[in-house]
């Protein structure tokens, strides 16, 4: 299992190995699951109450399906750890954070200073997501 380089949670990290989406439904004791780009994150919705870790794999940074997977889970109320793994680069992590990722395990560790700057780059955002940041239109109109 990929250890997160950055984690924005206070709870204890889950040590269980992540299983595939296909096998997750049959393994009633599994608490960690790994989503590949071709998986349908909605297959996990019936099981959200027992999931404590979702890893979303980005085999190549340009495959953006994982962003939708993350938002779907958060929009459905998933509150456990959502970890981006794979080809996770410094210039994508702020987008990922906005989509609900709260842990990052890049294949190649990021420069911590660069990552910190990237997470803090934009003071405001135009779109609401489940990350709780008020969009600019909400700030404009109270």
């Amino acid at each position: 299992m990929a250890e997160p380089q950055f984690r924005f949670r206070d709870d204890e990290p889950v040590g269980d190995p992540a299983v595939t989406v296909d096998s997750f439904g049959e393994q009633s004791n599994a608490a960690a699951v790994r989503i590949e780009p071709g998986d349908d994150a909605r297959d996990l919705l019936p099981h959200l109450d027992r999931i404590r870790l979702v890893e979303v794999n980005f085999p190549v940074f340009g495959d953006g399906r994982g962003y939708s997977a993350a938002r779907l889970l958060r929009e459905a109320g998933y509150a456990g750890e959502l970890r981006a793994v794979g080809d996770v680069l410094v210039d994508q992590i702020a987008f990922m954070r906005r989509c609900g990722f709260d842990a990052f395990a890049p294949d190649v560790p990021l420069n911590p200073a660069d990552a910190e700057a990237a997470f803090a780059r934009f003071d405001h955002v135009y779109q609401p997501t489940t990350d709780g940041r008020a969009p600019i239109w909400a700030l404009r109109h109270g």
Partner: protein
Amino acid sequence: MYKYDTYDQAMVDARVEEFRDQVKRRLEGHITEDQFKPLRLMNGLYLQLHAYMLRVAVPYGTLSSAQMRMLGYIADKYDRGYGHFTTRQNIQYNWIKLEDAPDILADLASVEMHAIQTSGNCIRNTTSDQYAGAAADEVIDPRPYAELIRQWSTFHPEFSFLPRKFKMAVIASDTDRAAMRLHDIGIQLVKNDAGEVGAAFYVGGGMGRTPMVAPCINPFVPIDQMITYSEACLRVYNRYGRRDNKYKARIKILVHELGKDEYTRQVEAEFAHLLTQGIEPPLAELHRIQAQFADPAFEAGASDDLDRSDPDFALWVDTNCVVHKQPGYIAVTISLKPVGGIPGDASADQIRLMADLARDHSFDELRVTHAQNIVLPHVKKADLYGLWQQLDAAGLGTANLDRIGDIIACPGLDYCSLANARSIPVAQKISERLSDRSEAIGELKLKISGCINACGHHHAGHIGILGVDRKGVENYQLLLGGCEGADTSLGQITGPGFDEDGIVDAVEKATEVYLSTRQDGERFLDTYRRIGMAPFKEALYG
């Protein structure tokens, strides 16, 4: 015009600093070209055949005179004294140094401009009708809706790594002047019987190697759900658009393979879910934006009289000017297609002149058109003759809007690393050969692409030309019968291709077929639609 508030300005300023940091890391070797490429592309910076090309966004084609003047300044300071206006209402600079790019973005930010998302697999600059706010036939000014989309799509966290690029257009007239149905999402603003504004969504159009005309998937999305519906369209595409083959990755392929009905079903399901998520900006935000697009202070009772005693002026008025919603005013197209010129190019001096004329005679506004011309949308007729004289003296008075010399051409093999053939010299030769017959031929939209990616919109030309590589030699295919607009159609290939001189001859022959067989009032396109391909084939190959 839209004015940035502190939030909008902070966003582009932060972007400049981010890119400055990315360029620094690249120049210092901390990131590889492979890692840098998507970052520079997100900022509109392409590595072309000879240098970096920077594409600057002109949201929905609207510019103030100060913005236009800055474009001239950048052309002088960082390029070779000219810029190239594009089919997506943007401007490109072809001779940029990487180390200058952050400073250019900072200069742009000083006049509320940017190059955000002018490339990359993300939502690109939203285009619109060049006569928005001036057109007599519009239901409502489409630009506030395009601005709403601009903000929603800027740094959208979910849709920055789509299967492929994504282009949206918004219009509000039945006469489509923005090739709306050839976009990934085309929106036509309409009013229902109750007088309420809604958005008709056309999804899955495009050109490229597999041209498709977008079907309407929803004829009336309530206007306070337009962003949510767009998000649903994009989410289905991001999740299920093909990523195995970049040539099959545009949304048109997904819509085609799923079928319009199944794609629509999936969008509607996602839409129902997203309506629960509170992502739609309130109507107050639309109204805030709309207030900034209020009509300028037109002079009531301005005269509609024009002194047409100068025949050159009269010809230009009849060819390049269109009716305005306000009596006494007219919308002016400045042709960037002088006979034998490079389509869409303007010198820094010309750009500055157009800026001054906009300030003095068009309420400080200009538009870039998808046909690579410039519009002064609100000119008082009483000012028109003096304005034309200044344009004409600067080489900007060509009377050829929608004529055979008003050619759309991509940069082609003269600049572009994707091209198979040159476009510009072909455009120049056709313009030189046929411009003296411009008036006799009348409306004829000719469009040239230097490769199958179709940046020159050849599928949508009444006459289209596609440059291909045939065993190492540039070869040009001829297409007839394409059209954008309400009656959008795709051109058909006539037959075997031609060499560079041969394609010029072929175009001439096609116009001769038209001139000898047209009936009263028929345009080239009408004659082609009536008589079909055969007479043209006979003339070309017989």
